[in-house]
């Protein structure tokens, strides 16, 4: 089989290289995009079809203990969505929590090539690496959580930023993590003490520190380490009417922190739809008082440029909420009265992650306003490079509904069609009906490819189609010059639901929805190198703390190379300047 391919006559959208709908050839050699190809090459004439880099999803729950527990506890989620095996793909099931194989195949069929798991309890990392073995057709990465860990609290309380940074570096090396995840800092821990800590300045029981302290310390540690991806943040007080106030407070709390080498963004706020609920002027904070905070947040976002955000767009229909925000899930359980799981985790997430299946309805007052929030926000931002499309899969909706979300962003007509049968609050409590703006293909390419790669810090080889990039390419079956997407939203959905061709590292892995399974992919991780004395110090301290606090040995904490080395792509980070 030829290792060289030339895609001709594609209409390319490659924002990282400033290409906005030009007909361009793309040359692939040995898994990379090259200037030109010497020797024999397979030529594919795309006949004017739309071409983008392979999709980069920076926040989707695809592997790990809570994903597994969710799958196991909801067999009804899978029964109506069976996926038979084929000659080159394994069998499986969908729907909001597919098995590992089907996750990889379905993303691949949609033109996605990199998907990051955003919440890992680091001590359970071995399990996630095992699952990665069976997540085919995708490059991936893991974000370990740090903000409810007793060890983090220990360093924060001591004001020991070096120790905190070293702890982060040690964990990232030992479990192969790609960044620092923060979920309800201090809040989930507090819940192990029966306290629902939603105030950023409230005290974490027994430690004398606040969520603000934890947030700032972790932010400073990440910046001092120089990690490519900034702190990935799920704030306190999620999912409550009026919480836009606390979210802004927490964003303000890191505004003064200097980014590594002067970089502008020091935080990535994830699934903003759950964190920017406003309330009707003068009313209370019950669900009946809900209003969209999307516009207000867009104004804040345009003025305060120190962070990026992803949407967490509600898509309506069945979803499964699963987060490291145990107390929020307990709250949701009290609203639904259905199934509720909480998973306590030794030392690192005492209050536990939570899982609650949930169905969003356009006829429900609260859900309809929740739907308007991220759209109202996205359609008012100045800088799409800071605004990422996501559904926090499977929390707000399954990733298979991304094309639907794209259609809402690109087509006012589509928004109107959907709002026709929606609860009146969608009209009354949000400005969305008045918004005419429609995103174009270039902006979609930014928000689903270029920007996420940049924010993750993997943009040298991902999220673009320039020379030197990995040949991760998505070709869609539409000629942008012949289609008016805004007027034909069904066409948007059809186009983005199934790629015409998907390439992963130069290998053709999907054609018109028929997927070829491949194990040729990588799991990205960071290797932050500390100076010798800090490295020695942290190993000694962690051995003591871990042997005291965990119920297994410090020596059995790291994920063995045997599960990683064939998959791992380590990004070296020079953090040697951090004092011991």
């Amino acid at each position, binding site marked *: 089989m030829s290792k060289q391919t030339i895609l001709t006559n594609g209409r390319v959208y490659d924002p990282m290289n400033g290409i906005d709908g030009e007909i361009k050839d793309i040359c692939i050699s040995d898994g990379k995009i090259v200037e030109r190809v010497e020797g024999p090459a397979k030529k594919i004439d795309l006949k004017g079809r739309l071409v983008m880099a392979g999709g980069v999803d920076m926040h989707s729950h695809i592997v790990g203990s809570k994903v597994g527990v969710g799958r196991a506890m909801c067999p009804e989620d*899978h029964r109506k969505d069976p996926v038979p*095996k084929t000659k080159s793909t394994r*069998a499986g*099931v969908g729907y909001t929590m597919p098995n590992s194989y089907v996750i990889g195949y379905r993303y691949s069929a949609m033109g996605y090539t990199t998907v990051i798991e955003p919440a890992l309890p680091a001590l359970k990392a071995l399990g996630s690496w*095992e699952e990665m073995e069976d997540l085919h057709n995708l490059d991936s990465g893991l974000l370990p959580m740090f903000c409810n860990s007793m060890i983090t609290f220990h360093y924060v309380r001591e004001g020991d930023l070096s120790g905190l940074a070293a702890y982060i570096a040690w964990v990232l090396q030992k479990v192969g993590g790609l960044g620092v995840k923060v979920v309800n800092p201090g809040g989930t821990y507090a819940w192990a003490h029966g306290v629902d800590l939603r105030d950023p300045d409230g005290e974490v029981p027994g430690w004398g520190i606040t969520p603000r302290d934890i947030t700032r310390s972790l932010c400073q540690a990440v910046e001092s380490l120089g990690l490519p991806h900034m702190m990935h943040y799920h704030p306190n007080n999620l999912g409550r009417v009026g919480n836009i106030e606390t979210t802004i407070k927490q964003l303000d709390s890191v505004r003064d922190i200097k980014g590594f080498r002067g970089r502008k963004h020091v935080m990535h706020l994830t699934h903003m739809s759950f964190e920017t609920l406003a309330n009707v002027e003068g009313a209370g904070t019950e669900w009946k008082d809900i209003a969209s905070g999307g516009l207000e947040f867009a104004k804040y976002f345009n003025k305060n440029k120190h962070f990026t955000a992803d949407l967490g767009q509600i898509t309506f229909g069945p979803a499964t909420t699963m987060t490291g925000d145990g107390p929020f899930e307990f709250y949701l359980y009290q609203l639904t009265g259905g199934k509720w*799981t909480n998973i*306590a985790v030794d030392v690192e997430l005492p209050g*536990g992650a939570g899982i609650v299946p949930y169905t969003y309805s356009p006829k429900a007052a609260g859900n309809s306003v929740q739907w308007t929030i991220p759209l109202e926000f996205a359609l008012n931002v100045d800088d799409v490079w800071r605004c990422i499309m996501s559904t926090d899969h499977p929390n707000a909706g399954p990733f298979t509904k991304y094309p639907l979300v794209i259609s809402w962003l690109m087509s006012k007509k589509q928004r109107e069609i959907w709002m026709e049968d929606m609860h009146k609050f969608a009209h009354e409590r949000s400005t969305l009906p008045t918004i005419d703006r429609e995103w174009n293909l270039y902006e979609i390419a930014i928000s689903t490819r270029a920007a996420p790669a940049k924010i993750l810090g993997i943009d040298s080889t991902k999220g673009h189609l320039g020379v030197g990039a990995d040949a991760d390419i998505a070709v869609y079956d539409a000629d942008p010059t012949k289609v008016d997407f805004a007027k034909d939203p069904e066409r948007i959905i059809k186009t983005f639901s199934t790629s015409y061709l998907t390439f992963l590292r130069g290998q053709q892995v999907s054609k018109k929805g028929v997927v070829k399974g491949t194990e040729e992919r990588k799991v990205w991780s960071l290797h932050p190198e500390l100076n010798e004395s800090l490295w020695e110090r942290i190993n000694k301290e962690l051995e003591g703390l871990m042997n005291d606090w965990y119920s297994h040995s410090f020596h059995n904490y790291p994920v063995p190379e*045997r599960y990683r080395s064939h998959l791992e792509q380590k990004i070296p980070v020079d953090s040697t300047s951090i004092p011991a």
Partner: protein
Amino acid sequence: MTEESGMKENIVCPFCGCLCDDIALNIESNKITENKNGCSISQAKFLNHRDDRLEMDAPLEVLVKKAAEIIIKSKRLLVYGLSSTENDAHREAYKIAEEAGGVVDNTSSVCHGPTILGAQESGEPIAALAEARHRADFIIYWGSNPQFAHPRHMSRYTRADGFYIKDGKKDRQIWVVDVRKTISAGVADKFIKINPGCDLEVISALRAIARGKILEVDEVGGLPISELSDMIEAMKNAKYGVLFFGLGLTQSKGRHRNIDAAIRLIQDMNHFTKWSMMPMRGHYNVAGANKTSTWQTGYPYAVDYARGYPRYQPGEYTAVDMLVRGEADAVLNIAADPAAHFPKEAVKHLASIPVINIDPKRNMTSLLAKVNIQTAIAGIESDGAATRMDGLPLYLKKVVDPPEGVLPDRDVLRMIYNEVRRLKK
């Protein structure tokens, strides 16, 4: 090539769901001569690993071929076991089931399967072992006899001192609820004896009392209402409670309904204080079997591939039922002993069909098997990964070499899979 001699520390014990990882072994010339820290069952497992091995009556390649032929000829293959071997072996087993269009079930169907069913009804507030040690001031063992089935559970986790519970004996209460006074009941702070088969009524009564209902009876399940009320009071007054439950709840009358009721009770208690629960998983990697099955097939056990995709139904695709109904016409048994642990009717059918038995040691199933293949013991003679009862994955190390020519389960299963594919062509 394994080190021939010396001390090996932080070894994970592959016996029960405690997955103790502080075992220290003395190795001399590829022999384990000492096991420090392990309980008496752990001692037996490590020190006697070379004894009583499964005899193979032909070279491995011949046996693999025979096994593949049995699979090819079968119409309804049942793949079973898995809980006493490591995760990579599981992955090979699902591949075979998928290829053969057969059923793959693991031992949870006769162990904590009902717990999974209960969680599928209601969810589950799951505890963690270090968290129990640090915070729990009230522990209940219900239908579980840890001193016998999980010998170090109490000394390592529930009687041990913690971060907040400074004295594991004085600052913490341990109660045992059971139908007979077991040895664990003997060392607990309180023993509550309930009538056999009455767990569902008792738990439901507790739930009602917790919600403030007045029950118009004097006693439930052999317990006076006053004692049940006292129990709820104690549970509500706890700061952090953990309910460990065992086969007394899953195997007696009510089965999954018992678990569902217990789950709902613990969920209710979270309105007053903090409570969580944990199933006492028996085999060291049965939790791992559920995990691997779930990420590979979408379902935790009782999976059928007859239509080319996974389907799930306990009662239909569970091993005991498939055997009792006479539906399975061939069995691939991996690291389990159904002949010893299944009811008579199931064993009778098992004896009438071709059985491929993959195990390091002889057991009752090997007496019935048509093909016996000896494999390396995971966690001693081969490496792998396993999952503790609270979901923590641990790496099992290879500490000594297996007997000459003996391979890990995963390698043998891969060979069988490849031979099945070859024969199909």
